[in-house]
């Protein structure tokens, strides 16, 4: 499990599938999830479980649903207090359609 060496800024709370997770102001959402042992963030019918791979926005495997938005890259967004996250489910036959 990823662990943090120091916490430089104030603590906030975000929610993963209704479970509260502590995060700090300015932290990447994918980093928060990994620190709490959540490796798999999205599931596709044709791909199975996937999670953060590149952490820089090129692989699109860390997709999550954020509040009312679907299929957002967790490595590209900053955690906000009270943010509600859910696993992105793509049950279409391909990785491309019907998930936006």
């Amino acid at each position: 499990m990823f662990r943090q060496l120091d916490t430089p800024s104030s603590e906030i709370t975000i929610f993963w599938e209704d479970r509260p997770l502590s995060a700090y102001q300015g932290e990447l959402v994918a980093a928060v999830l990994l620190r709490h042992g959540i490796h798999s963030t999205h599931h596709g019918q044709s791909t199975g479980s996937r999670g953060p791979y590149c952490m820089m926005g090129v692989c699109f495997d860390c997709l999550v649903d954020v509040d009312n938005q679907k299929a957002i890259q967790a490595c590209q967004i900053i955690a906000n207090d009270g943010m509600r996250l859910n696993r992105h489910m793509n049950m279409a036959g391909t990785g491309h359609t019907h998930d936006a």
Partner: protein
Amino acid sequence: MTPDYDVIIVGAGPAGMASAITARQSNLSVLVLDDQPDHGGQVWRNIRQNHQHHQMRAFLGKDYWKGHQLTKDFLNSGSDITHQAVVWQISHPLSLSVTIAGIAQSLTARAIILATGAYERPVPLPGWHLPGVMTVGAAQTLLKASSSGADGAVFVGTGPLFYLTITQYLDAGFSIAGVCDTGARLNSLSTLAALPLALTQPNMLRKGLSWLRRIKAETPYYAHVSDIRLEGKEQVEAVAFAYGKGKTKENMHIPSSHVFLHQGVIPNVNLSMASGLAHQWHHRQMCWHPVCDRHGASSVEGIYIAGDAGGIAGAGAAVASGHITGAAVAKALTLATSPKRALWQHRIKRLHHRALRPFLDQFYAPLPETLIPRDENTIICRCEGLTQAEVTTAIGMGVAGPNQLKAYCRAGMGRCQGRMCGLTVQALLADHHKTPIQDMPYYRLRPPVRPVTIAELAALHQADHDISG
């Protein structure tokens, strides 16, 4: 109509920041669009915040802190800077479509500099798609952006970033379950031929050697690693591999829930390809890069390339190249010439940094099994979940090139738009048809180069209509 800016720069990494600083010295109006939350690019990611805690985060190392001065100069340069800005199209004459905070807009400029940097070469090994398997660069990003690391991880790969990140992990105090070195092959004539030029940069060579010595002393280190498999069901549970040479080859199995892969980096060419710039194959680096002159001017008038987006040479060369390109753009737009002395210093610096590169490219060449995967169950196209068997079956049905392959099996048609499978598909096709790799084209890329919602597009057209109406 007057353009919105003299220069728009895409990317706020070493090259983007340096070109902005130099362009601003000629009083050009500059906008920098960057898709990350803060400036610094990948190499100096989160440097503003980390610098405030630099005593606690000394493990990031000397080369990281070197970026602080440039980022300060960049912030003081008078450039407009917008972060989390996703550029998805460049049209002619020079205009650029970008989404900022969910709103798409179109911006015009007299010149555009693409400083889109590099990303890590995809590593299609059996099981590389499993959660828990990440790139070494991703592990380093978590160190820089979140001061986080994972104890008991296994590092698999080769290259400067590979050894640097492991050293940072050691300095930060994380335990390492294994280092599986796939590279360092001093066995070809071309590697030896590149050595004399590399020896002109003894400090850089010495740094690399000291990393390696330390890693060998302080971690379970395995040399000449091949036949790698990442095992697990829902997430990675272990790494299996062979190590050693010839008759002394042995098999090894290390349980771990974190595996970090690295096989070098490649230029980020999706935007330059989709913008119609000419590209060529780089034999030594085994990747595509835009064709440009020594000032960074591309094949399309008004579009320039700076830094690793034009070919891999590292952060030091990227800074020099950014200054050189910034000066070239200033000269083209204002006829002003930069102070000759400064320009020559940047040119010499770039030469120094490039001197080591041919040796590094050969010495840390990607492992053959990651270039042309032979295992049938290895995922090739991550987005569509396509295996090697599915892709090679489609190829065997008579597919001539990557674009036709899309119609047969949807390879390259997912969200990443070929970033994770493009080179592998090109290599598999070239292998099947016995064609030299450089003669097999890449996917034909088209804008938008990032997923865009219909709502964003509709808002953009409405805005255009408002302006013209």
